[in-house]
């Protein structure tokens, strides 16, 4: 059974059909790419998958659980985590605390334990600290743990965002244009990181990109979106040679 099963997903904003009739099926441990030109509705799909928007129609099932239209907290607990196109870190918090926030629903204790600093508090905090540092180490930013997130260079901010997402122990990680704003070197490094995350954590990754080269080099399966509809699906090779995809990307003459 597929890990993520999306059927006939659709949403419209004030008459504009942003996404319609989208089917996705992502196997566990799959590196899956959702590509398409600007404005094709990729991020909207992410927003529906994570519960930021309630879909107008269709269903989303994660690991057999129906998560359609559930709130983000519920979906996060079920096992979907994401990053954002324009990095959204908790800028004024330390790198370590950013990761700990990601762990919010995995290591729990109520506020009174915190206020009385009892044993539960100390144990859980120690546990969080250890796990967070481990995660940061995987990305090579454990030395930065005490810095404010805003003090990190751009590339490391991207890594921290992934780190925070992983802290919620997702089954499926959504990456929204992870290579945006990166130079070729950083992009290469990122490709390695993404693969490493999949291998080490054994999770499925769905990523949005419009940098075709990046996607081709890394994804095992692709869906191409145009005007909110899937126009092609398959392995990179097939998709790349699909005439509709070529038209969508080259846009006839002018684009």
């Amino acid at each position, binding site marked *: 059974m597929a890990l993520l099963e999306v059927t006939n997903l659709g949403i419209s904003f004030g008459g504009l059909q942003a996404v319609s009739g989208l089917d996705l099926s992502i196997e566990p441990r799959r590196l899956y790419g959702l590509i398409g030109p600007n404005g094709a509705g990729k*991020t909207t799909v992410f*927003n529906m998958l994570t519960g930021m928007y309630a879909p107008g129609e269709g269903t989303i099932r994660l690991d057999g659980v129906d998560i359609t239209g559930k709130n983000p907290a519920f979906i996060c607990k079920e096992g979907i985590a994401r990053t954002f196109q324009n990095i959204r870190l908790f800028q004024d918090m330390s790198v370590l605390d950013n990761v700990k926030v990601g762990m919010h629903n995995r290591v729990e204790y109520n506020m009174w334990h915190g206020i009385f600093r009892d044993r539960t508090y100390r144990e859980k905090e120690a546990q969080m600290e250890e796990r967070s540092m481990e995660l940061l180490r995987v990305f090579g930013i454990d030395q930065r743990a005490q810095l404010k997130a805003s003090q990190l260079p751009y590339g490391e901010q991207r890594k921290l965002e992934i780190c925070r997402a992983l802290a919620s122990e997702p089954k499926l990680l959504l990456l929204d244009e992870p290579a945006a704003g990166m130079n070729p070197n950083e992009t290469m490094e990122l490709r390695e990181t993404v693969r490493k995350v999949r291998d080490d954590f054994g999770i499925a990754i769905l990523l949005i990109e419009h940098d075709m080269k990046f996607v081709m080099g890394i994804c095992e399966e692709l869906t191409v979106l145009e005007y909110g509809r899937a126009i092609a699906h398959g392995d990179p090779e097939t998709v790349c040679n699909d005439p509709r995809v070529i038209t969508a990307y080259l846009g006839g003459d002018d684009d």
Partner: protein
Amino acid sequence: MQFLSYLVRGISLGSVYALIALGYTMVYGIAKMLNFAHGDVIMVGGYMVFFTFCKNQVPPVLAVLFAMCVCTLLGITIEKIAYKPLRGAPKLAVLITAIGVSYFLQNSAMLLWKSDPKSFTSIVSFDGVTLFDGNLQISGETIVTILVSVVIMIALMLFVKKTKPGRAMQAVSEDRGAALLMGINVNGVISMTFAIGSALAAIAGALLLSSYPTLTPTTGAMPGIKAFVAAVFGGIGSLPGAFIGGILLGVIENLSKAYISTQLADAIVFLVLIIVLLVKPTGLLGKKTTVKV
């Protein structure tokens, strides 16, 4: 009849709120800040009219014009000295500074003109009208207040929609950065906004004091807050919104005073505000803003 009379007086009070609220809302739209000192500009305007017209018999129109000039200068100066350096600073810093300016104006007035209440003579000299066989009396102040604010409202709308500086204001309010890139003199537009808002405050001060003739250094504070509420009520940033908000606020206040309780009138006004915001979180005519994910 009784009801009509309360209603008309409510509209009159509301018109004053509307004039002040227009200033609030314009400044908010352009500078994205709550100018807490706006209410105190009314008070300064009031004193100006008091010293020229009430004390020295300067013709009322001239007195009001003089007050408008003083307030305009005051508004521009405040903006240049206190607010402009804080552009790009956290919103809260600007807010506290505005509160500081408000205290400054109140206490300067206290030092200059002492805190004892001055009794203001109405700038309106005609007696008003009596309708329905004397059952409904409308005072001259009421009529003038309502007329003046309607005229100003229309003029302001035309200014913003039809003239070049007006469109520049709209552009700055939509997107300051883009307006700057389009060659709009953003600083000029902001100064102009403060100037217009302050001039309106002067008129509002003269009209308010003509109906409620006690002038002290804190006269502007409560109408200022009420107008702020009116602006939020109508949807802050929207000119018609501020106008409608002001009128509604005045009417609600006056009717609650008449029919429910004098002491609780303000509480009712604020309660209505809260309810409106719960139903329409950006006010009656406010634009909905969404954050893109």
